[in-house]
């Protein structure tokens, strides 16, 4: 009998991360409905408008994907740091650094430069700027034990003031003195074929870059020694240190890579999606990226889909104006979803409870069926198929037994 089920006894299913994430989304949407009801509006009309605004034609779908682009990259950034046990809430600042680097280069590099040389230059320059910005937090954490949450927030505001200083100094639009001059289309990440394909939306090469980055991050984390070391530091710092992994180096490398990913997100945002930078504006996307990473369970595939979900929320809210619901409902839903993913213990135990109850009901049925056939094989030794079959057959028997009592 040994060897069946790989030697593992049959037991109740465990709640998978997907089930927990979907429950968090469900609760977030319920909370959104409650808020809309509180101000006396119709929640279904609201969600219908959100879906309409995000997906009703190719241009809107293109815009939604354009918005999802930076969310994917920032989600990857947060997730990458999270795997090393670090919480990167400085994605906003890293985005600004990537954006300002890209914008300044776009402004000053010659217009007749071939694109296949130009694009790699701004991508690499922006990633280096963000990597440096992330590295500062990692360095402070490794060498001086400065909590990365506080240091990244401080770096966010420092980046904010750097942009406040650099925009008027280098790239100001003289007619509107608080915004930068829009970048010429040839110097953005936009591509003619993508723009035409989606009816002149904001979709750009960044979307392809973000898919490539998903693959690269998956590869680094799953297939390389570097990824193994980083994850080891994340799951138990002291154990990793004992095993000879250089913990301080891992922290710095992880933050630098996270910074590079976030600043690439900033580049796609400021030199592809919007093409201008505003003075005195902290990008909200840096914080939405936390929601993306947590909802996607920090896996690249999960991040891709959760980013598209948040992209729909963020693009679709623009159409809410007609219903009189404030557009901030989208941010409220996002924040509620993070709260519920943080408290995933209660969601997981809720589902585990349900699975456990249904399993024990099936177990009763199996026992009743086997009793009726005088089969004395212990339940643990049954295969999955036998278990399912017996449970089906014994359902009526178990019910009759219960009623008999």
């Amino acid at each position, binding site marked *: 009998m040994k060897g069946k089920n790989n030697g593992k006894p049959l037991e109740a299913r465990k709640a998978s991360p997907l089930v927990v994430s979907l429950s968090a989304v469900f609760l977030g949407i319920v909370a959104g409905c409650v808020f809309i009801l509180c101000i006396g509006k119709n929640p279904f009309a609201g969600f219908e408008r959100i879906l309409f605004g995000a997906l009703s034609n190719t241009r809107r779908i293109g815009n939604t994907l354009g918005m999802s682009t930076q969310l994917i990259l920032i989600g990857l950034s947060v997730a990458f740091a999270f795997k090393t046990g670090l919480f990167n809430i400085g994605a906003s600042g890293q985005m600004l650094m990537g954006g300002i680097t890209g914008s300044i280069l776009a402004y000053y590099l010659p217009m007749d430069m071939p694109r296949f040389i130009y694009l790699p230059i701004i991508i690499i320059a922006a990633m280096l700027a963000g990597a440096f910005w992330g590295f500062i937090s990692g360095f402070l954490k490794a060498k001086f034990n*400065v909590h990365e949450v506080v240091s990244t927030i401080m770096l966010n505001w420092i980046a904010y003031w750097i942009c406040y200083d650099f925009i008027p100094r280098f790239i100001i639009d003289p007619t509107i003195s608080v915004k930068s001059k829009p970048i010429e289309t040839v110097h953005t990440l936009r591509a003619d074929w993508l723009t035409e394909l989606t009816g002149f939306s904001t979709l750009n090469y960044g979307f392809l870059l973000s898919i490539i980055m998903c693959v690269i991050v998956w590869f680094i984390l799953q297939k390389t020694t570097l990824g193994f070391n980083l994850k080891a530091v994340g799951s138990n710092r002291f154990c990793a240190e004992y095993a000879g992994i250089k913990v301080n180096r891992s922290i710095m490398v992880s933050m630098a890579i996270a910074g590079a990913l976030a600043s690439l997100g900033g580049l796609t945002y400021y030199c592809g999606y919007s093409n201008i930078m505003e003075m005195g504006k902290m990008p909200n996307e840096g914080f939405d990226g936390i929601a993306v990473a947590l909802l996607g369970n920090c896996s690249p595939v999960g991040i891709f889909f959760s980013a598209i979900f948040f992209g729909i929320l963020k693009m679709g809210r623009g159409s809410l104006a007609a219903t009189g619901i404030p557009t901030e409902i989208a*941010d409220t839903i996002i924040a509620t979803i993070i*709260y519920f993913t943080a408290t995933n213990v209660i969601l997981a135990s809720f589902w585990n409870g349900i699975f456990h109850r249904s399993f024990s009901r099936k177990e009763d049925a199996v026992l009743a069926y086997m009793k009726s056939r005088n089969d004395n094989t212990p339940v643990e030794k049954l295969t999955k198929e036998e278990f399912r079959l017996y449970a089906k057959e014994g359902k009526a028997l178990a019910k009759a037994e219960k009623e008999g009592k």
Partner: protein
Amino acid sequence: MGFWSVLTSIIPSAIAYTIPILMGALGGLYSERSGVTNLCIEGLMLFGVFSAAATIVKLQAIPGFSFTLAIVIGIAVAMIASTLLSLLHAFAAINLKANQVISGTAINMLSTAVSLFLAQTITGSGNITIVRAIVRQNVPVLSKIPLLGPLFFTSTYWTTWVCLFIWALSWFLLYKTSFGLRLRACGEHPSAVASAGVNVHRMRYIGVMLSGFLSGLGGACILVTYAGEYNAGSGINGLGFLAIAALIFGQWKPLGILGSTFFFGLCMTIANMGKVFPVFQNIPTGYLGMFPYVATLIALIFSSRKSAAPLASGEPF
């Protein structure tokens, strides 16, 4: 402008900036000393700003309603609202044993989104500006003292004195009463406290709720003293995180945070009043603006190495 006159204009303003950070840091102190990492001071303070602004605007619109009474009620409402919001963090951190850093971040985002959402429904825009804030007054006798009088007792807000009183009371509560001893012990060795018959969960709830209460007060102080408006765009500019940094810099001690928050208050003054003084006129706004944050980072470098953080802070019990 002589050195003395610069000093007499900087110090009162620095005190005004210090008080909200002090209240936020003191709130963080209660929470962390009871063993719950609290990174949502920013969100709690912002919610305080918003709820005070909404209340005061509604009350001051009533003809004949006393402005001062409206401000007092606004502050009280802010304290209650932030306490309620902090309960969400307490529930997640204490009962559900959630990751406290993530839960705190969620509260920050929730506070930003919900307050803006409500502000839009109340006033139709992202800003709420109150009609009149607290009027600065000289303290009757003390302002006549030479040297100290002009620095500390002229053109002060009455909230400053309330907050300083709360700070002194907190010191007494934490170090001279059995309640304080138990609260601090919950943050160091919760199991030891539990075996002595103290309800650790209840103490931690009190710690987190006090942090909400004080952060709400801090937020209301921002509104009724120097800001005068709730602005969704800039929020409170990371002041809540400065409070957490001040808590670390002040080594989780009441006297320490009084010193460190005054240091940050001074930095904020330099950043905001730079244009007024000829000394700073040649420095661009951007560099002055980032000054408090750079100073915070440098302060953290020197204070984080030898950290006196409560041992069990962030550990679920």
